[in-house]
């Protein structure tokens, strides 16, 4: 009896140890991007409809030197020399950027958002400092890349890249200059080099347009951003994809286009989005005048509401009138039976969560410190764009459509949130506890639901075969807020409807932009 017990105990102890052996502790930090071999050159992209630029010729690109010129020959010789002594670091840089500039920059922007998506810490006196774009390295760092800020940042980068690439495509097919690897047998194509004309270099266009916007959007990230941009241009050069003059022309075009967007960003209304204490009080007074319970910050110390004037920002594809007319109806009154029932539903849900429901709440949490819900949808879109092997300009179009819709969703949703200034469930019933962080802005309607419905609408247009998958993700992202204990069902339902209507604007634009 004793010895058999001993044997059993030993067996358990040993097998418990064996379970742990062989733990591989390496994590692949980014989505794998195979070298981009575009399914199509999209040679007509120079005629696709512009969004902000007047047309592809708004910025002229001078004709390049002939392939037979001495200057160009010297450029080719320089590439040959570099290729003959490439370092491992240079090869790894080529491999990285071969995955596609648009996809890589989208990853980088998601990383920047996650890095800067932290709210300011309170001061000892209970007030909160405001992130200062003139002093971005201080505490608090600038920006606080919260969901509306992030939606705007993703959209500026995506739209500016798209416009710059359309212009680049126009000039490429004006001049038809070949890539160095195509001209010179002594130069090896170290990343896929297609028949796409090399002048101006699309990699340099992307580098130039993106770096200038990111410097404005994430000024504290300037060192890393500048380095990445230079690396992208070098990778194009070293790989035999573009010559120095292709790159110089591309960089200049990219920066010229960026200036248009930097100027728009300076005047789009973000500057005043945080509002003033008098405006915050007016929001509460207005709710009370309507007989409603106004939203109150549940943070300790109470934090000013997140970007109350963001709803007044300039949308991409909607006029201010359209922003207003697409709004959902008012939420149930805070004193209505419906609100009482919805509050009870939140309480019951959060106290009876299954593990699967918890998983959905955390999968879609996308809270502070994350790349936000718009970043999550970029994450999703990136895989479809990669798998479709889209050309750089078509990939930029996909991200532009997606992110214009989500920025317009942010503008639309924030406008409604501060129109009604509706309290969170926790405020109406302090016995409710949340399993995710409680956002510091009014409840109605749900931002996740609005973003997700807008995104799913656009992605379903771009990738119709995956429409059911996008619908599933949209519904999971939306209902995750009820599971989290931070939204009523009305917030979610009206948010989804609102988001789908806003996404429709991007779809209608895409249906007639000449890219189909």
């Amino acid at each position, binding site marked *: 009896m004793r010895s058999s*017990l001993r044997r059993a105990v030993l067996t358990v102890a040993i097998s418990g140890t064996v379970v742990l*052996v062989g*733990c591989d502790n390496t994590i692949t930090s980014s989505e794998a991007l195979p070298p981009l071999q575009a399914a199509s050159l999209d040679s007509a992209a120079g005629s696709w409809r512009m969004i902000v630029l007047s047309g592809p010729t708004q910025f002229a690109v001078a004709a390049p030197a002939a392939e037979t010129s001495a200057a160009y020959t010297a450029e080719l010789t320089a590439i040959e020399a570099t290729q003959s002594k490439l370092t491992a670091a240079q090869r790894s840089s080529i491999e990285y950027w071969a995955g596609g500039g648009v996809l890589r920059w989208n990853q980088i922007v998601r*990383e920047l958002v996650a890095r800067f998506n*932290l709210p300011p810490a309170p001061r000892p006196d209970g007030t909160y400092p405001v992130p200062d774009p003139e002093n971005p390295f201080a505490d608090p760092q600038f920006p606080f890349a919260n969901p509306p800020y992030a939606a705007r940042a993703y959209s500026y980068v995506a739209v500016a890249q798209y416009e710059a690439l359309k212009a680049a495509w126009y000039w490429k097919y004006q001049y038809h200059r070949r890539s160095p690897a195509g001209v010179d047998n002594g130069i090896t194509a170290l990343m896929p080099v297609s028949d796409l004309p090399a002048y101006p270099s699309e990699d340099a266009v992307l580098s130039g347009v993106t770096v200038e916007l990111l410097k404005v959007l994430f000024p504290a990230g300037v060192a890393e951003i500048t380095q990445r941009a230079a690396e992208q241009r070098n990778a194009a050069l070293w790989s035999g994809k573009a010559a120095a003059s292709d790159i110089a022309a591309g960089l200049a075009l990219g920066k010229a286009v960026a200036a248009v967007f930097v100027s728009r960003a300076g005047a789009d209304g973000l500057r005043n989005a945080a509002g003033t204490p008098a405006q915050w009080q007016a929001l509460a007074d207005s709710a009370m005048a309507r007989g409603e319970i106004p939203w109150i910050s549940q943070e300790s110390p109470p934090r000013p509401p997140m970007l109350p004037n963001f709803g007044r920002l300039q949308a991409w594809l909607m006029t201010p009138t359209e922003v207003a007319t697409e709004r959902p109806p008012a939420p149930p009154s805070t004193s209505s039976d419906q609100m009482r029932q919805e509050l009870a539903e939140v309480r019951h849900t959060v106290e009876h969560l299954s593990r699967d429901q918890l998983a959905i709440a*955390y999968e*879609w949490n996308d809270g502070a410190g994350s790349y936000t819900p718009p970043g999550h949808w970029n994450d999703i879109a990136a895989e479809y764009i990669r798998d479709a092997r889209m050309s750089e300009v078509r990939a930029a179009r996909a991200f532009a459509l997606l992110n214009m819709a989500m920025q317009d969703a942010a503008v639309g949703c924030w406008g409604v949130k501060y129109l009604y200034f509706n309290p969170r469930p926790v405020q109406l019933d302090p016995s409710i*506890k949340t*399993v995710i*962080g409680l956002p510091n802005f009014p409840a109605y309607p749900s931002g996740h639901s609005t973003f997700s419905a807008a995104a799913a609408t656009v992605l379903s247009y771009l990738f119709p075969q995956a429409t059911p998958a996008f619908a599933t993700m949209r519904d999971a992202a939306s209902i995750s807020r009820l599971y989290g204990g931070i939204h009523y069902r009305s917030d979610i339902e009206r948010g989804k409807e609102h988001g789908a209507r806003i996404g429709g604007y991007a779809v209608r634009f895409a249906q007639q932009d000449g890219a189909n």
Partner: protein
Amino acid sequence: MVALSAALRAQAVNDGLLMPRGALGTSLLYTHERWSQYWEGSLKRDNGNIGTVTTQSVTWVAGYGVTDRLSVMAMLPYVWTHATQGPLHGMDGLQDVTLAAKYQLLSTPFTDRGTLRAMVVGVAGIPASTYVPDFLPLSIGLASRQFSGRFTLHFQAHRGWFLTGSSAYTWRSKVTLDRPAYFTNGQLYLSDEVAMPNVFDYTVTAGYQHGRLCIPISLSQQRTQGGSDIRRQDMPFVSNRMDFVRVGGLVMYTLPAPRELGIRLGMSRVVSGRNVGQATTLQTGLFYTFHL
């Protein structure tokens, strides 16, 4: 008597004691830990959105003397957490099941004052439920599978004094989150898997045993071999560098009758730390030994 009290005391992976052959000791421990200040990286602060965080647990522990040189142990805690302020929901559930084997390498008279023992301990831990590790500080654990290799030196003086030094290196497996991306170590990881840094710890314990009473006091330190600090005003993350120094004391008392029953009462306090709460811990428990 000595054998029995050793059985009652040999209840932790880092003590210097073995269960006598054929003895099965089991205990039920209640632990109450609370903190209102924590270290955000190296910055000590409080946070009005959580107030005081309390973690309570009930742990079942069993130890069995397989031979006079080999003991095996098992532990399973049920944990629940609570924050006194703010909207965040506490969590509860079965945490990690731990299995350990202690093997005595040597036991030898050392000077004319006592006996020196050396032992190695292998400890394996694995989550006993599918709890969420991504809601710190209210998660009940880190959900990593772990294996520790531990070495312990124990000197038992003839007059009741003892001194124990124990040190371990713990390998920790990746943790899988419910989300597809996270930011740590200054970068965005587009993965649901988190690499967990390994952990080094040591404990020095001095104590006195007389009759039915045993009073050890200890100093222990944990140093995580990597991981990043909590960012300014961010939530803690599962792979943060969690370091601390803790001091504590314990009183263990074996009842006159029944002699198989003992009680324990302990207290400890974190005196310095990084990415952890400055916890004060109270522990009480009952233990009972069977002779098979």
